[in-house]
């Protein structure tokens, strides 16, 4: 290495180079060994940690929602089915810039402010992290295509098919079947842990009607699948899957033709019709009018739509046949008569003198019959029912006394819910001394008994109760719980007998005859409704004084007059020899039970017994020609 050296020492240089190469090889082996050690550390020492992390990365357990059970009518016609709709959802955590994504989406598909508002609300109440939050429902084919083309720009955006409830007959079964709706925050807060699990992946729940009552049956059991996702959350493949158990199907007693007949017979009037199968308690038809289209609610009703429905003076959302409670008026007279016979207070031959007025002993208050001058000098039970003689029942009720009348009515289920298989039924009022003391803080007055005997005063019943009560008479005391579902997945639902009333047979015969006289007698109140019938039927008309419940939420002076008219009621069953069908009808503000409600009942019976079904065509509006009557007096017939 000396400066003076003029020639290279090749050998020395080669040796120097070889030493350097050896050194460098050693260094490289050490460094590669270091790398190997590093990989060994990651792959062997920390293996468990990273395997866990890797699985957490890729495997997600996804709930697989079950398909909701279907609902069929008596003939097997589908009343509630599931239709695939395409929903646009966003997994918020997977978007890098939510606002940007949303505005991009808005440029691709139509998204209303209401959609956005609902979306923002849903984000706040989201149940599970990484849950797709629906933004737009019912995407059109074109919108799906547009989203597909832009998929690469839309991080965290998903379009998936969901089965959504659809009601092909719309309003026809609105109050029976009810509807499903989005699972709300309130629903979730009510969920048990088990329910919370069951509803993973499900977006809707039965809100009303059968959909709500049979929620557990219809919903089915949630399945699950392990899916492998990529970093952007897209499902790449299903690793294993536990299939969901689909919900069970409901087959109803309800008959679409009976429903249509009821609606046609009501001809656009407000009210309710309930028809029961006497033998089984099956609900053949149950209509509450006006109605609404339940399909509006399925994916979340718009604010405007809901406001219109909710604030309508006609209260279409209100289920009149189980929630509407009206004074039953004279329709309960057959039952009061039966009670009188049963307790020996009267008999079929006994007559009273009816001067048209009734007065309690030692009292100055005078009750006046609807028929001026009264029904004659010798009114017996049959005539009293046929002509709806109030005086006879005022007398009978007073003789019988509140306690026995109260007890007997309770056997018929008055004042209690019928237990029909839809929720939110109201139980009405069938008063007793105890009830009055508890509810009103007052003792029972003899005048209360007088009013109660003709279904007035404090008495309130729902159309469902009236129908059940009529069916119980038709069944000669066997009270069967009304129900809409005939079978669940081919498994027949056995009728539930609530009780059997032991009343002697000839008493029943007397009441049957009297009720037949209403229809077929020369002076029967509903004789016109029975004209030309090929079978014999039994019935009883009634008129209910208007009380608060039927009045609209808003004050509308023009409508108010019409709405203060009495409600027309009618109950009936047929054929009288072997009763098959029992019908209760109420026409709100219809006045005259026999003229307004009885023809509806007749049409129902004709339909069921003779197959004379009606179809609602162009429905006439409410009758506007009748003059306003002002506040009605008691006009019970």
């Amino acid at each position, binding site marked *: 290495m000396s400066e003076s050296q003029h020639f*290279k020492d090749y050998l020395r240089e080669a040796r120097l180079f070889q030493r350097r190469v050896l050194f460098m090889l050693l260094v490289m082996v050490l*460094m590669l060994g*270091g790398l190997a050690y590093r*990989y060994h550390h990651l*792959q*062997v020492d920390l*293996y468990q940690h990273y395997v866990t992390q890797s699985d957490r990365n*890729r495997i997600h357990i996804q709930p697989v929602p079950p398909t909701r059970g279907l609902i069929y009518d008596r003939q097997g016609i589908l009343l509630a089915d599931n239709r695939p709709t395409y929903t646009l959802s966003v997994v918020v955590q997977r978007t890098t810039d939510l606002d940007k994504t949303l505005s991009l989406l808005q440029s691709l598909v139509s998204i209303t402010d209401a959609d956005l508002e609902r979306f923002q609300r849903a984000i706040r109440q989201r149940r599970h992290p990484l849950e797709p939050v629906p933004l737009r429902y019912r995407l059109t084919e074109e919108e799906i295509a547009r989203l597909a083309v832009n998929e690469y720009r839309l991080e965290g955006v998903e379009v998936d098919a969901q089965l959504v409830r659809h009601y092909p007959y719309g309003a026809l079964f609105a109050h029976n079947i009810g509807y499903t709706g989005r699972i709300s925050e309130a629903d979730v807060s009510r969920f048990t842990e088990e329910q919370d699990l069951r509803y993973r992946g499900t977006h809707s729940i039965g809100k009303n009607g059968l959909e709500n009552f049979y929620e557990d049956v219809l919903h089915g059991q949630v399945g699950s699948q392990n899916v492998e996702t990529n970093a*952007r959350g897209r499902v790449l493949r299903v690793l294993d899957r536990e299939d969901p158990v689909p919900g069970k199907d409901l087959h109803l007693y309800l008959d679409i033709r009976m429903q249509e007949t009821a609606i046609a017979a009501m001809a656009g009037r407000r009210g309710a019709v309930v028809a029961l199968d006497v033998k089984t308690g099956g609900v053949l038809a149950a209509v509450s009018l006006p109605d609404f289209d339940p399909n509006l609610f399925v994916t979340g009703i718009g604010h405007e739509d809901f406001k219109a429905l909710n604030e309508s003076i006609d209260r279409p959302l209100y289920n009149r046949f189980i929630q509407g409670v009206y004074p039953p008026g004279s329709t309960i007279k057959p039952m009061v008569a039966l009670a009188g016979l049963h307790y020996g207070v009267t008999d079929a031959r006994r007559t009273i003198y009816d001067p048209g007025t009734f007065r309690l002993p030692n009292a100055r208050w005078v009750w006046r019959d609807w028929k001026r001058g009264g029904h004659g000098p010798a009114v017996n039970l049959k005539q009293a029912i046929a002509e709806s003689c109030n005086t006879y029942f005022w007398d009978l009720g007073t003789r019988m006394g509140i306690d026995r009348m109260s007890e007997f009515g309770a056997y018929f289920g008055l004042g209690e819910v019928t237990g029909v298989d839809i929720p939110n039924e109201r139980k009405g009022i069938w008063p007793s001394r105890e009830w009055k003391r508890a509810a009103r803080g007052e003792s029972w007055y003899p005048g209360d008994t007088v009013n109660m005997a003709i279904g007035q005063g404090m008495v309130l019943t729902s159309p469902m109760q009236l129908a059940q009560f009529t069916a119980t008479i038709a069944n000669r005391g066997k009270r069967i719980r009304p129900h809409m579902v005939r079978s669940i997945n081919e498994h027949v639902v056995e009728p539930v007998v609530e009780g059997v009333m032991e009343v002697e047979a000839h008493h029943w015969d007397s009441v049957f005859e009297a009720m037949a006289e209403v229809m077929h007698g020369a002076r029967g109140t509903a004789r016109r409704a029975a004209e030309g019938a090929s079978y014999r039927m039994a019935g009883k008309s009634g008129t209910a004084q208007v009380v608060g419940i039927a009045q609209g939420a808003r004050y509308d002076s023009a409508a108010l007059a019409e709405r203060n008219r009495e409600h027309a009621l009618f109950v009936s069953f047929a054929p009288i020899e072997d009763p098959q069908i029992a019908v209760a009808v109420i026409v709100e503000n219809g006045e005259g039970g026999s003229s307004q409600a009885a023809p509806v009942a007749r049409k129902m019976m004709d339909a069921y017994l003779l197959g004379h079904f009606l179809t609602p065509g162009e429905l006439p509006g409410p009758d506007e020609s009748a003059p306003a009557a002002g506040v009605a007096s008691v006009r019970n017939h």
Partner: protein
Amino acid sequence: MKISERDFLRRLPGASRSFARRERLEQRLHIDFILLLLLLAISAVGLVVLYSASSESRESMTRQCIFFGLAYVVMVMVAQVPVDFMRRMAPWAYAGGVVLLILVLVIGVGAKGAQRWLSLGGFRFQPAEVMKLAMPMTIAAYLGTRFMPPRFKHVFFSALLVAIPTALIIDQPDLGTSILVAASGFVVLFFAGLHWRYIFAAVFLLGASLWPIWHFMMHDYQRTRVLTLLNPEADRLGAGWNIIQSKTAIGSGGFYGKGWLEGTQSRLDFLPEGHTDFIIAVMAEEFGFVGVVVLLAMYLLLIVRCMMIAVRAQDAFGRLMVSGITMTFFTYIFVNMGMVSGLLPVVGVPLPLISQGGTAVVTLMAGFGIIMAVATQPKRVMTPQ
């Protein structure tokens, strides 16, 4: 001079005939068969891994095969070039490379905030690649004709030659390539017998200059990478994502791996750039620690073979150049595998023969072509100047 192992074997009766035949063939074709075999083996591994990493993309495979084909052709062509011609061309290649690097700064096209390419009629060309070979050639050519170990002025001039293109590449910015280029120059100095006191001094200087480098020379994103390396969890979805995901891929591979085409991490898009710079994570996931060790062993064999060629080279230029190129190759491996496993900051360095890539593969194989040229061409003696 004592006889080499090869000469000894050649003289053995019996073994000599086939050996001699191979020797003649190798020299006629200018191909080192052992080196070629190792290269082919690693390339095959690369294709197998890439097939999985590219999600079984036929297109990727076709492209990579075309690149490999081209690269092997380039290698064989380069191997035919006389070593002496290379030595004379080295300064020109260096000068041309520097000019191109300056051009890049002026008219280069960029991507992702860096300006690294020259666009030649639709074809993108990265001049820094040229420097990866021009650098060791030039330093080898400069030092090879001088006394070894090099004197101070030679060391100083060499360092200057290294510094100019390195600085230009850092400025693009391309930290990975600049490290490779600088390393390829300095290792030649080392192999030339650079005195240890210079080496220690350099290490000391480097340590002292870390602070100014950190504050004045590094770009924000480069600082972020270093900080991310120290604590990848701090920014899970941002800069830390790559490292976390690649470590997860490697770690979850375990000892035997998840099996070919079964690597979930990489194939499910969790691993970014799984087919390029981060491909070793795919391999580690699917073939496990066993696969990694096998690959490391193949690389080591390749390096040892190259170093043998360097030791046996005809002259100082040859051995310096071969050892320099070999060290560049090693640096690729170490930096890539170190960064993917979270030992080193993330710098864009592909894994030789495994990562999908265009020009990098060609440059790499051109380097092996040079090594083969040195290995197979007849000895020439040079006089010091």
